[in-house]
């Protein structure tokens, strides 16, 4: 069941990101839905699951949404999953403020790691600072709204079961 949830979370994130790309280029530029499973597993799952989801979703992201270096997003998100899983183990971050703050921080860290890795590999950087901050803000908001919806769904499901 856990493995199925894991695959569902990754599948849903990739599906929505690909749909978004076909719906609006501008939206797809400022919204990175493939970060959300990492945030979710980081604050509510185990450190290991956060790392594995980060690695898997990162590789799928690299395959479909990046060009040039395969593995760069997987590398970043494995590291972020590990850091987030460690934080989630020590602090309770699974609430409104925590979700926004972690969503924002993870997206920002993802952008900074990207710049660092691109520099290491001598790849040209675009002027993406403002884009990075907007993406961080939208990721924070999506974490609040999306995870809130999951909570509501779970409560309804539990209520229906008795």
């Amino acid at each position, binding site marked *: 069941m856990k493995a199925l949830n894991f695959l569902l979370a990754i599948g849903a994130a990739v599906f929505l990101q690909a749909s978004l790309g076909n719906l609006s280029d501008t939206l797809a530029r400022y919204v990175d839905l493939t970060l959300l499973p990492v945030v979710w597993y980081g604050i509510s799952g185990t450190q290991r699951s956060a790392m594995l989801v980060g690695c898997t979703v990162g*590789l799928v992201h690299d395959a479909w949404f990046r060009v040039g270096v*395969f593995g760069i997003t997987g590398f970043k998100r494995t590291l972020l999953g590990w850091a987030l899983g460690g934080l989630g183990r020590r602090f309770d971050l699974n609430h409104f403020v925590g979700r926004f703050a972690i969503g924002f921080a993870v997206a920002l860290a993802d952008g900074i790691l990207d710049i660092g890795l691109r520099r290491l590999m001598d790849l040209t950087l675009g002027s993406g600072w403002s884009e990075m901050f907007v993406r961080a803000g939208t990721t924070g908001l999506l974490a609040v709204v999306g995870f809130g919806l999951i909570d509501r769904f779970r409560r309804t499901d539990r209520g229906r079961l008795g």
Partner: protein
Amino acid sequence: MRSAGPAKTRQNVLLLVALLFAQLLLMTGSLRRSSGATHLESWTMTLTSPLVSVAALFGGGIDSVMDDVAALVRASGRSARLERENRILRTELRRARESMAENERLRHLMLMREALAPSAIGAGVVVSRHTSTERMLVLDRGSKDGVRIDQAVVAWGGAIGRVIEVGTSHAKVRLLTDPNSGIAGIVQRSRAQGMVQGIGTDTLKYVFVSRLEDVIHGDRTVASGAVGIFPRGFGIGRVSSIQEKPNGSREIELVPEIDYRKVEEVLILLEPEGGEWLLPPGLMEPEP
């Protein structure tokens, strides 16, 4: 808060190191274009291809539904009969226009294909991404169709980019606007040579052009064919601004001839031959 014993923490650190090391190898392999990394990427794409293909249709469908909703809101003041009739007519018209535009594009592509045959194949765009760090397309053609790395990708009117990665049934194209893109260009009117670079925006930069060269606003820049990926003569863009710098250099900006965001079908040149034939007749300009 969740607690974990020291043994579990150690296991997690080991797993982290293993995963990071594996991905470092992948990155290195990818940069060196080794077969292992390419195969894993191709395998990942093949495995998730149905999901992304359905997502492409889903996204397009929502877009179409949103268009319909907007049209309905605009027409809300009209009578029910007229509205219904109008909607039917507009739907038919939109479909007809879409078919016409598609026919036009395909006709142009077929003409281009005939001119180039058998050295080019048509391809559809599955995913397009336009961020400041990368600008790319994923096409529905791959190695089984004869696509190889470094082949030129064009559309009606000019150059699009080059194939950077190839899977069995998909290929990734780095657009000219990507910050890691560069192509040798030449001003069609004055033959001023330079390098066209992407900067991660919707415009291009024309660099390494001597101050003595004659470049004016509106000049058309085409591929010079110097590097060998793009055949000579493919349209790249038009000069939109020229700024003189205090250090004596010039900053020339180009507006691409093609709106990369609207590209739905492209041609992959399997052999870099016949470029001159692909210029639209209206864009042909006499050489001085």
